[in-house]
């Protein structure tokens, strides 16, 4: 799969390298949910900076990753959405409320720290 999933402390970082097929998107969701449970992660970052296009299927999948990861105890932040991609996404008839977003990886990590009250080791 063209997605690198790294573990950083309590957080998972999934970096999507290139456009994904629908089945790869579904597989990514399963993989992330499984890892969240296994590593007891409290935050997930999905980096989509490499994507020129996010279609409605991927947008819906991102929202559902956020919702399901929340059910398993992890907050999700999507980072790297480009301006034109953002404009396209708000025109889909999709509820994007569950989706949290940040400008880039740095901002995403900062947002997760705020959401989860910092890394567990730091407390």
């Amino acid at each position, binding site marked *: 799969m063209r997605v690198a999933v790294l573990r950083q402390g309590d957080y998972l970082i999934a970096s999507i390298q290139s456009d994904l097929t629908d089945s790869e998107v579904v597989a990514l969701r399963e993989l992330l949910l499984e890892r969240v449970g296994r590593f007891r992660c409290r935050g997930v970052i999905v980096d989509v900076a490499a994507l020129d296009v996010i279609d409605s299927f991927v947008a819906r999948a991102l929202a559902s990753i956020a919702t399901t990861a929340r059910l398993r105890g992890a907050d999700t932040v999507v980072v790297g959405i*480009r301006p034109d*991609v*953002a*404009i396209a996404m708000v*025109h889909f008839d999709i509820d994007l409320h569950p989706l949290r*977003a940040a*400008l880039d990886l740095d901002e995403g990590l900062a947002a997760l720290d705020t959401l989860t009250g910092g890394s567990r080791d730091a407390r």
Partner: protein
Amino acid sequence: MDEHRTAGPAPAEVAGDDRILHELVTHLRNERPALRQEWARRITDASLLSVMTQSEVFSEVTAAYDNYVSALETGSVETLQTYARDLSERIIPRGVDTDEVLGIVLLLRDVLARSLFVRYQDDREMLDRVLDAYEPAANRIAVTVGVSFVQERERVIREQQVAIQELSTPVLQVRERLLILPIIGMLDSDRARQLTEQLLGAIQSHRARVVVIDITGVATIDVTVANHLVQTVEASRLMGASAIITGLSSRIAQTLVDLGVDLSMMRTVGDLQGGLEEAERLLGHRPAEAEDVAREPVGG
């Protein structure tokens, strides 16, 4: 050009047209001072070019006359086109209208035609042939000048539109991570779309976390534009920036509610000052202590 050829009596005489054209041009050159004077007088009589002074009109008339005659002579309108563009560029900012420009060119056509009538009135056949040569060329010149003027004006209008568009949506950085977007005037779909693009670009380049969109200067809003605004806020969020809308007038607020636009996702604050305070809070800068204390009883 075709018109010119079919106007000639027979193909054999086409060669003769050049000679006639030459004679016509020589006549107009000889009569230059008088005809120029006559043209300028008729322009003044018709109160055309009223924004220009007498001497300006006269110097313009001289240049235009020479260009006109040489266009007649060569049949090439390119030099005249350049002159007409250049002239338009100078007179458009002074408020000269299309009808004035066309009126002036048609006046010159009439002045010259009248002079041709006088010159050849005794030779009916010659007059016909001279007019055959003169009329199509003169008409083409009139069209060229008119078109050049309109094109030039359209170019000016396009430039101004671009300038207005750039001016109309300034995205200002107030402090690190905080942008203000003051919107003034009419909001239509085009402008709303352009505004969204500019804002998102600025969020990226300034790494903004909060944007305050101030619509104090917007008088009315309709459903389409309101939805655009909602989408702008949502798109900003996807770029990691929270948007705060300020300055919703009571009229707009009532309109939006009556129209049933869902604004539950929007963070709105009464005025720009309040919006900036809210933005500072979101950014984690604590407002002055005294203000907090003063606020406590109200909130609690």
